[in-house]
């Protein structure tokens, strides 16, 4: 089988990701565990990223978790809006 080669744009993204890699990162499970609290802080106008930096860090890196966070925010905003 031929080996798949990364395109220049992918390499650029990879370079950024490699450079930004830290020894300590949380996984999707831990992020999910803390996501409700994180979302509440965020919606309360508090600095959630500062209070829970590893969650913010994970959200910056993980598309699946980021998508769920954004959907959760939308769902929570619905709760506070008039029916």
């Amino acid at each position, binding site marked *: 089988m031929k080996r*798949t080669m990364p395109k220049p744009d992918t390499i650029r993204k990879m370079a950024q990701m490699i450079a930004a890699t830290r020894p300590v990162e949380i996984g999707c499970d831990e992020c999910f565990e803390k996501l409700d609290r994180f979302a509440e802080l965020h919606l309360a106008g508090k600095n959630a990223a500062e209070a829970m930096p590893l969650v913010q860090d994970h959200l910056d890196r*993980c598309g699946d978790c980021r998508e769920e966070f954004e959907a959760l925010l939308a*769902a929570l905003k619905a709760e506070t809006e008039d029916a």
Partner: protein
Amino acid sequence: MSDRTNLEWREALLSPQADTALTDLRAILLRGLRYALAGRGVTESDLEDFTQDALLKVLRELASFRGEARFTTWAQKVAVRVALTELRRRRWRDVSLQDLLAEHEESDFTPAVLTDKAPDPGQIAVRTMMMEKIQRIIAEELTDRQRQAMMAVMQGGMPLQEVAQRMGTNRNALYKLLHDARQRLQGRMMREGLSPDEMLAMFSEA
């Protein structure tokens, strides 16, 4: 509608007369999902199904709710995960990892993409060299699994969940595998005399 305390929610859902609480929770989740999934082309019956699945999951996992957020926030989080998991599954159902990766086989290495964005010829040369270096390092440092996962996510745009499922693992483990891969690459880059900061600087203004 959601003016129960966390404790009251738990007690109500666990009591033999949970009907009212279930109805209330159902309405909250349905409404939340409607907003959360707006613009994704989901049908009313999808919303009903997701809500039902979410409700069951919430009840199943009630014991794991630790009260660090409001109960309804926790439940909505579970619901959003249920719905998006299913939507991703549908969206990618017909795409195999082989197909996804094959699309990019032999993709030629066109410096045109670079020249457009790089400010001067000197920098273009440096970047081209750097890209070649990264390609080589990826080939040398990563296991087949790591490379496959990284390509599927970063180039193929496939969600971790779907890559994980195709590779016989789960999303959390796949994230760790990718983290390990990134760390290996970073270590190698540093051994080759390139610091993360330099690398960021080189690629960020592109």
